[in-house]
């Protein structure tokens, strides 16, 4: 028996979880379809001896390496960066680092301020109340007063420990006269909302067994389902359906036995990340209404993919700092080279986050900076570096280009036979100049902090955590896919809640802004519920 929901949400990750909770708590009948399952924290590998082996296979961040039934392949032969994601309730928050920076006012005005890309149709001040609300829902640990940001509400919890490395780099930056600040993290420093605090195990990016790191399976879905939301796991959506009025009527989905179902709804919200959402819009092409893909009259669905070029600069001291330990996450951050400086050969900048280096396998089979060395020199290298380092993780602002895109692969499919997404992405010359400058400054930072040795891993391919921009927000339907409320210009009852809508990438980790935008979208939907067009 089928039933018609007020709102159908596709994807139970960061944006889907936030939207579901808000809508359910405001009386909406919400159904969510999620291709993954509830995460089982007892299966997380961080407390096991095979942790560093597991993160190279079953707990890899790449769906192509993990290759679980709930994953879909992402074809990336023509991409400089490999897209990374996790399919489950909680989505990629299960494997994210948990750093929680807001965007800055300038991030939403790069055309006006720097003459590049486009301004957002909303401003920083529009996001502030939602940033504040999300921080409380998530339980963010941090310290107010960062002079890199306009003043805002204090965080609900005190900052996580600086650690020995964080303290040393902080002192180094003080000597240089450079900015640093304790990084805000979506990781509990003290008990909060029934969850336990971080124990500094340093395995955040392979799942937090303690549940200290926020993910919506912990922070939002229990409250959403308590308010009546229905979450169907193992449900892979194959297309959004369109009715005679040109409105979305629901979605077709397949269960694990490949039995097809149709979920009807008055409103559809896509929350499937910037690769998955673009894929679904393109899969939903309909000869009668949208032959080039749903909500794609602008031709921009799938285009302007941004992924943040990512470099790591690691420094090693001549004594132990327990560099394998600590939240991952970041201890401190620096925005010294974030804003545009006209004296440089690029505009915009990058955010730095200081992180642990990992265990022994990560040292000698580096996923980040370092060298692979065997023979007697192996032990010399380990003796010199193991436990003695910390890494600046550097995300550079990635300006949008229409040639960087997601489309449908003509050959590859997922386990249900649905065409896989294909990603074509090139790091621009502008980004290369920007990142080279940041790498040099980060090396100076670590040298000033007393490191005896440094290494740069420049623009690492295995780094596409931040998927943004494939259904951009804007006021003009000819040059954008959704409006400032994240409602599709072409389909009045279709919304996009994930980072597909980002106009530009900023240089900060996106999940804080993804969730703030999702809350704003859901809140505006609640406020305007009587004006919402729905299918007959």
């Amino acid at each position, binding site marked *: 028996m089928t039933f018609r929901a007020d709102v159908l949400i596709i994807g139970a990750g960061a944006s889907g979880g936030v939207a579901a909770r808000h809508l359910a708590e405001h009386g909406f009948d919400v159904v969510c379809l999620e291709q993954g399952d509830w995460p089982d924290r007892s299966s997380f590998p961080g407390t096991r001896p095979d942790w560093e082996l597991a993160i190279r296979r079953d707990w890899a961040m790449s769906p192509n390496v993990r290759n679980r039934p709930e994953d879909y392949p992402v074809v990336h032969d023509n991409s400089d960066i490999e897209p990374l994601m996790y399919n489950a309730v909680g989505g990629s928050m299960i494997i994210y680092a948990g750093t929680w920076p807001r965007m800055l*006012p300038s991030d939403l005005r790069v055309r006006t301020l720097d003459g590049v890309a486009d301004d957002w149709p909303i*401003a920083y001040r529009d996001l502030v109340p939602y940033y504040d609300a999300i921080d409380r829902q998530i339980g963010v640990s941090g310290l107010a007063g960062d002079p890199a940001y306009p003043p805002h509400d204090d965080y609900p919890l005190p900052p996580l420990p600086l650690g020995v490395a964080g303290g040393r780099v902080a002192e180094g930056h003080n000597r240089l006269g450079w900015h640093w600040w304790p990084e805000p993290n979506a990781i509990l420093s003290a008990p909060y909302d029934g969850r336990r605090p971080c124990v500094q195990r340093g395995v955040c990016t392979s799942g937090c067994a303690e549940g200290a790191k926020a993910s919506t399976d912990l922070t939002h879905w229990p409250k959403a389902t308590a308010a009546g939301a229905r979450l169907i796991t193992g449900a892979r959506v194959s297309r959004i359906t369109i009715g005679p009025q040109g409105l979305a009527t629901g979605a077709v989905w397949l269960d694990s036995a490949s039995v097809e179902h149709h979920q009807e709804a008055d409103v559809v919200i896509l929350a499937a990340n910037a690769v998955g959402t673009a894929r679904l819009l393109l899969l939903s092409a309909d000869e009668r209404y949208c032959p080039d893909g749903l909500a794609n009259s602008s031709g921009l669905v799938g285009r302007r993919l941004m992924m943040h070029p990512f470099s790591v600069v690691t420094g090693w001291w001549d004594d132990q700092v327990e560099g394998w*330990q600590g939240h991952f996450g970041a201890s401190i951050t620096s925005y010294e080279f974030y804003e545009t400086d006209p004296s440089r050969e690029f505009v915009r900048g990058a955010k730095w986050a200081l992180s642990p280096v990992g265990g022994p396998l990560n040292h000698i089979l580096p996923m980040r900076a370092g060298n692979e060395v065997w023979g007697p020199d192996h032990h010399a290298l380990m003796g010199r570096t193991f436990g003695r380092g910390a890494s600046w993780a550097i995300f550079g602002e990635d300006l949008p280009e229409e040639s960087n895109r997601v489309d449908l692969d003509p050959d590859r499919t997922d386990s249900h036979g649905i065409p896989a997404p294909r990603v074509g992405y090139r790091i621009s010359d502008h980004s290369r100049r920007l990142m080279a400058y940041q790498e040099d400054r980060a090396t100076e930072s670590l040298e000033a902090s007393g490191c005896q040795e440094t290494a740069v891993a420049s623009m690492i391919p295995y780094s596409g955590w931040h998927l943004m921009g494939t259904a951009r927000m804007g006021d003009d339907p000819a040059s954008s896919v959704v409006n400032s409320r994240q409602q599709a210009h072409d389909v009045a009852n279709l919304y996009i809640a994930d980072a597909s809508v980002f106009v530009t990438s900023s240089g900060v980790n996106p999940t804080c802004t993804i969730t703030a935008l999702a809350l704003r979208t859901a809140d505006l939907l609640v406020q305007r519920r009587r004006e919402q067009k729905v299918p007959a």
Partner: protein
Amino acid sequence: MTAADRSSAVVDIARLEELADIMLPAAHGMPSASEAGAVSLYIDEVLGWRSDLRQPLAEALAALDPTTFTVEALSAFLSEDEAAYAALTTVVAACYYLSPVVRDRIGYPGQVAKTYDPFAYTEWVADGLLDPVVERGPIWREAPG
């Protein structure tokens, strides 16, 4: 080749031990792979966790002759067969760094839980660590709208 074939590929343990000793000899106060019992004690565990490595490891062992093997030859092997190279280095390293003797020598207890005082930050704030940052004033850029 089926998954079952890959996971049942025969690994020549003696040959692996010989190669591992060349990759990780006794030096700089660290034991060799065989002195740590790396392969003999931990190979079953490692290949149990990562059965996908068994077949490429067997291929690496078939391709590399311990009597002529050198560390330099290992580097060249990377360009010849990346999957086999990755399996060999991963398995040897994983076995070696599971050894409690090795972990003790490098001071690594594993990824352990730690307790801390979440309000300890008040001390370094009071000590003035952030003062130079705050005294410099705002560095964010005003934007219209």
